Structure formats: structure tokens, C-alpha cells
């Protein structure tokens, strides 16, 4: 059913109910299954890859080490060495999103990060971490973040208002960026795939032959989406680092 429906791929499918909290039923869904698949894949990648603890790493171990050093370098360069206390957090976010994005690229799979509730929850987690750690670490001095130095007193209220607004809107842009990218990319892929079916069923053999054009587009788009899948995970992680840097060093 709905083979040509580009929205169908985002459907949440209930697998089995688990519990009932108040009015809402907690159900194990396809989304949950893919999340746990990602957890298993990431853990296996890192633990099996380093099973031999080789001095000269194998390919898989080298890949695991590269992912570690990649995130560590990102954290250290954007949030300083003090930011390394958040390294496991950033690493978890990066690998979780990256793996979910990549799994979503496989045909017939489900893309967890194409759901706004997931990206919003991750973004709000980052937002609250920044807010709470900033307050815990610097107390009320954390709010110096909203008061840039060297601004004339006259326009200070306006500046503070803008700073506060931009701070509060961070989780929105943070979450919508990832969500929209994944959603749009997957819809585009599905739409082009739908063209092949449409042409084939409408025009017969000529249509199937002509379907090579949208198929070529799919190949190109898949390459692009692979880049986007990595890039969005990286952007999400580096923004997390930048926001954490504000919590660690609130002075502008």
C-alpha cells in the first residue's frame, strides 16, 4: 500500500505495548527498535573494534580510534580542555545521531532522527545541560552571557533582550535543523523513487526505460544524503560543544 506515498516511511508502527502511564500507552515501536539497534551497533563498533587492543590498529580499530579522536578534537578545540568533562556526552550524541542517520539511509529502514520529538528532546537535553551546568558552575555570573562587554548603556536593554531571545531559541534551531534535513532528504529520495514507479506503470516499457533518469537522481541524492547524514550529526555535535563552551566560559 501507498508505495508512492513519500510520507509513509516516517510512520510510527507499534510493535507491542509495554505499559500505560496515565492516559498514554507506552508502546515499543519501530522507532524504539532502531534506537536500540543504533546502541548495539555503536557499542559493538567500539568494543569489538578494540578487542585486540593492538598497538598497530586494524581497520576497524583505527576507525574506532578515529571516531574517538575526531570528537575529542572537536570538543577540545571548541570548548577547551575543561570541556572534556562533557566528552562522553558529546560523543554519545554524535555517534547516536550519526548512526541513526546512516541506518536511515538503508532502504526499508526507519529514520529515527526524522521525528521532531526526538531531535527536540536531544536539543532540550543539551539546552538544560548548558543552563544547569552554567548556573552550577558560575552561579548568577552565568547570566553575564547575556551582557556583552563594551556595549553603550543606552542600547543595553535591547542587546540583552536579543541575547536572551537567541539563547532561548537555540533548542528550536538546534532541533529543527536536524529534523528538517533528514525529513526533506528522505522525502526527496522517495519522490524520485516514486517517479520511476509512476512512469513504469503509466507508460510501460518506455516508462521503465525512462526511469533511468530519476534513478540517476536517486544515486546522486543518496551520495548527497550520506554527506548530509554525517554533516548534520557533526553540526549537532559542534553546536552542542559551542553551547557547552558558553556554560564553561560565560564571558564573551
Amino acid at each position, binding site marked *: 500500500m*501507498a508505495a508512492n506515498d513519500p*510520507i*509513509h516511511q*516516517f*510512520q*510510527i*508502527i*507499534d*510493535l*507491542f*505495548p509495554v505499559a500505560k*502511564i496515565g492516559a*498514554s*500507552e*507506552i*508502546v*515499543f*515501536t*519501530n*522507532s*524504539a*527498535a*532502531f*534506537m*536500540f*539497534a*543504533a*546502541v548495539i551497533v*555503536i*557499542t559493538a563498533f*567500539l*568494543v569489538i573494534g*578494540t578487542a585486540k*587492543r593492538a*598497538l598497530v*590498529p586494524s581497520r576497524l*580499530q583505527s576507525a*574506532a*580510534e578515529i571516531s*574517538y*579522536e575526531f570528537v575529542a578534537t572537536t570538543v577540545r578545540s571548541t570548548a577547551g580542555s575543561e570541556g572534556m568533562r562533557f*566528552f*562522553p*556526552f558529546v*560523543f*554519545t550524541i554524535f*555517534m*547516536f545521531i550519526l548512526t541513526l542517520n546512516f541506518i536511515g539511509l538503508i532502504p*526499508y*529502514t526507519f529514520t529515527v532522527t*526524522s*521525528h*521532531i*520529538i*526526538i531531535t527536540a*528532546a*536531544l536539543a532540550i*537535553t543539551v539546552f538544560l545541560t548548558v543552563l544547569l551546568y552554567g548556573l552550577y558552575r558560575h552561579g548568577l555570573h552565568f547570566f553575564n552571557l547575556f551582557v556583552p562587554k563594551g556595549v553603550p548603556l543606552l542600547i543595553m536593554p535591547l542587546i540583552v533582550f536579543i541575547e536572551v531571545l537567541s539563547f532561548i531559541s537555540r533548542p528550536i534551531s538546534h532541533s529543527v535543523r536536524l*529534523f528538517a534535513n533528514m*525529513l526533506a532528504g528522505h522525502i526527496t529520495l522517495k519522490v524520485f523513487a516514486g517517479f520511476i514507479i509512476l512512469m513504469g506503470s503509466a507508460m510501460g516499457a518506455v516508462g521503465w526505460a525512462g526511469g533511468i533518469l530519476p534513478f540517476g537522481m536517486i544515486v546522486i541524492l543518496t551520495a548527497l544524503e550520506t554527506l548530509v547524514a554525517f554533516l548534520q550529526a557533526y553540526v549537532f555535535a559542534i553546536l552542542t560543544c559551542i553551547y557547552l563552551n558558553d556554560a564553561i566560559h560565560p564571558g564573551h
Partner: protein
Amino acid sequence: MAEPHKSGTTQPAGEHKGGFPPFQSQTYASQLVWLVIAFVLLYVLMSKWALPRVGSILESRQKRIDGDIAEAGALKAQSDEAVAAYEKALADARANAQAIANETRDKQAAAAESRRKTLEDELNAKLAEAEKTIAATKAAAMSNVRGIAEDATRAIVERLIGTAPSDKAVADAVADALKR
């Protein structure tokens, strides 16, 4: 796990009629619960297991590299030391040889000098003795000359005038003539 089936008994949360899937709010509670569980599980696995593991591998490799570099440095220092010791030994030997040569030369020179001196002294002594002998011979010859001259003078005067002059007159006359 690729294409999960809808279990017939449960009402699927929003069978397409519920609108755009990401905005079907009745699915949010389930998604959030599983997200929290999965994310916390992953965080714990990463922070307690996987990351320390990878970190320790990287650290031990770094330590090994640093250790090897330090060892290489120590060995290099050792070899530098050995080279320095060798050079020093060489220089010492050279200086030693120089000293021995100098000493020997000085000794030889001193010995030659002293031999020359004794020889010279000996020669001088012989010379002096010879001169003394010459002087003595000359004096003896001179006194002989005077005696002969006096005898001759007396004989000549006796033959000329027939009388022998006094010894004193002859001696004075001879001394006077010799003085000239």
C-alpha cells in the same frame, strides 16, 4: 527488524489518518520513553566502557611512543658520551706522546749539553796545561838564552881586549841588549 509488522491486537498509533507522522502527538510519549532509555543506556556504555577502553589504547600507544623516543634519546646520549670519551682518550694519548717526546728530547739535549761541557772543560784544561808548558819552556829557553849570551859576550870581550870583564858588567850589558 527491517519491516516491522503491525501487531493486529493493538491499535496502531495513527494509521496515516492521524496526519503527518512526525506531528502525531500520540506517538510522542512512547518515543520519548524509548529515547531516554536508549540514550542513557548508550551514554553509560560509552562513558563507562567503550570510551575508557579506546582512550586507554590511545594513551598506551602514546606512552609507548614517548617511551621509545626517550629510550632513543638515552641511547643517543650514551653513544655521544662514548664518542666524547673516545675523543678524550685520543687527545690524552696524543698529549702523552707529545710529553714523552718533549721529555726525551729535553733529556737528550741536556745530556748532549753536559757532555759537550765536560769535553770543553777537558779541552780547556789541556789547553791551559799546554800553555803553561809553553810558558815554562819559553822561560827556560829565555834563561838559557841569557846564560849563553853572557858566556858569548864574555868570550868575545876576552878575545877582543884580552881581559875578562866582570860578571856584573856582562850581565848588565846583556840585560840591556835583551831589553831592546
